[in-house]
């Protein structure tokens, strides 16, 4: 085998390299132009002051200082960050928790489980913008399906998206409804990979449903759990469309649904009614978000992978 590979390499070294390069080039060009270049530009711009339209000078870490330590920007940053963290926690518990139970139920292949699979997965194929609009309508205080139903049992109009105590929860609910099928599918795939012999052996040893789940299936689906956890983390920090469509760019009411994605977009691009364009401060927020997501993902991956091996 080895000699064969050496032989090929020797016979067509430059042709082969050229061939590989020509295949890779289109993808590389796209990567550099649309991923690497904007990313590096954002890093560069984070260190510049803007006059609303253009960079006016290098200012070191000033933009970072402002968004982290200078009010009111720092208040807005921590408020948004807090909501990203809440979103992650809520999605882990409610979305992935439900997904786990659903996956287990589907695994048992009860009658009609195929239809159930389709129902659970269906919302995933909708676009986030449509899901946002749909739930905004459902939750409308006067005409929404939810309040109309509640009115039947005598509960008055609840401003789900207008009340600062219910707004974030409402937006999260829509998000869970949208994505639930995805972790369900990943976990189900993980569970289906657990070999029947292992399960049978456990059953013969007298393991009930609970023991089977906690002692056998849960440890063996560790790779799926890793994927679901990491994707949930990235998703809850890149969160944008659903809060944007349901509660607007300013995270109304009073910043109750503001998240980092909305805040940095608003800061960078401004809007005719609220702000002035500031790519410097916006980029500083984007860079911080990138560092948080990349850093935590790297650490979590390391930890979770190690856990997979230990298991």
């Amino acid at each position: 085998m080895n000699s064969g590979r050496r032989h090929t390499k020797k016979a067509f070294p430059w042709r082969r390299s050229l061939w590989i390069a020509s295949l890779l080039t289109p993808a590389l060009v796209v990567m550099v132009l649309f991923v690497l270049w904007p990313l590096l530009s954002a890093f560069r711009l984070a260190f510049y002051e803007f006059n609303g339209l253009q960079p006016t000078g290098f200012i070191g870490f000033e933009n970072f200082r402002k968004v982290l330590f200078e009010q009111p920007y720092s208040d807005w940053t921590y408020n948004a960050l807090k909501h990203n963290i809440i979103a992650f926690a809520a999605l882990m518990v409610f979305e992935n928790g439900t997904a786990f139970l659903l996956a287990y139920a589907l695994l048992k292949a009860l009658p009609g489980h195929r239809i159930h699979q389709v129902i659970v997965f269906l919302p995933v194929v909708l676009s986030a913008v449509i899901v946002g609009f749909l739930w905004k309508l459902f939750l409308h205080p006067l005409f929404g399906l939810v309040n109309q139903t509640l009115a039947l049992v005598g509960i008055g109009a609840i401003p789900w998206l207008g009340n600062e105590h219910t707004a974030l929860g409402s937006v999260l609910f829509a998000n869970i409804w949208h994505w639930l099928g995805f972790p369900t599918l990943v976990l189900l795939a993980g569970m289906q990979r657990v070999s029947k012999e292992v399960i049978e052996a456990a059953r013969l040893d007298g393991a009930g449903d609970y023991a089977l789940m906690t002692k056998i299936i849960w440890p063996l689906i560790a790779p799926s759990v890793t994927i679901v956890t990491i994707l949930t983390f990235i998703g809850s920090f890149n969160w944008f469309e659903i809060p944007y469509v349901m509660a607007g760019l300013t995270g109304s009411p009073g910043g109750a649904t503001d998240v980092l994605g909305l805040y940095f977009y608003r800061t960078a691009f401004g809007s005719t009614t609220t702000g002035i364009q500031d790519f410097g401060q916006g980029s500083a927020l984007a860079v911080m978000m990138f560092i948080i997501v990349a850093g935590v993902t790297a650490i979590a991956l390391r930890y979770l992978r190690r856990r997979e091996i230990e298991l």
Partner: protein
Amino acid sequence: MAHATDISFWTWRQEDKAAYNELFADFTKANPDIHVKFESFPDENYPTIVSTALAAGKGGDVIHTHAYGWLEQFVKAGYFEPQDLTTVPSLANQPADALVAGTYRADKKVYSLPFASQTLGLFINKDVFAKAGLTPPTTWDEFITVSKALKDKGIYPLANGMGTSWFNEMFVAIFTNPFLGQEFVSDLTSGKTTFKDPRYVAALGKLLELRDYMPPGFEGIDYDTAGQLFISGKAAMLAGGSFDIATYRSQNPAINMDFVAPPMAKAGDTPQVTKFFDGGYAVNAKSANKEAALKLVNWMGTKEFGDKFSALLGNISPIKGVVIKDELLAHVAKLNETAMPHINVVYFRFEKPTGSELLQGDITKMMSGSITPDQLAADLTSGLAKWYKPFQGK
């Protein structure tokens, strides 16, 4: 024959294409050597598109601009040509407060010829009032009495909610301005006082009384819903802008509505609507056809343009002596004579954080009772003190 020149007009107003093309055809009739091409871009990306194009030395010859702080960023970067009475003689047709909207604060020169004023006040559904046997209110006390009566009859007195940030800012301006008065504005802009002024805090407090007369779940009622409640007759009044007159008429051609000043603090006060200018027409400093562009802008400041502009677009042209044929619009233009400025938009959108950002963030909290008017006033003052010198240390 002079060589024909093609110039372009850039705007975010895609919906106004037919009207502008008609206006530009008139211009070409008078100036056969100049042809104007209408080019429009999506509203939300317009600032970015314009700044990117101008930075590259491109962009339209004449650029439709928003006013105040929005315009100032572009002027500061040197993208627009100053206009004066020698290059744009029709500037003389503009009232002083309109010119402020297109003036750069640092050099006091005009960079954008104002195109329209917007008035904020109270829409009245006359049929709803007639049916309920009530008269539209003029004072705050009347407003409360009438609202109670409407509510008893199962009609929402006021259609507004708090679900759309930019609309909330207008809501605040509409109902607080009659309690503030012109003197407050001059005290504020001269640095004599801040938003922590008891007059401002008291005016904010008045807004809390409105909660009882807004639709149930008003915290979540957005701009579109408010409009629907009003035009369908479910609500009797709506605090909104003259820019929606045409929209409401097209959505419900049978609507019998009026647009009046919001309730006065007490009988005998001057009725006070809120006014701001929506933007203007600027000339690209790098335009290869600057002369033709200035000619077009000058024409857009004439009475001839203003008359037709108001008729075609249902907007109020600020040009002196413009005849507005539409009865309701003419009435609104009359209300403008004693209007108050939209304080946040006219004075506090020049730097970050803008008054709009600060107010929009806090007002829903105040209306839901989680912060007091005092706290809102303090947040607004301390936020603006970052760049507005008269507030610093206060």
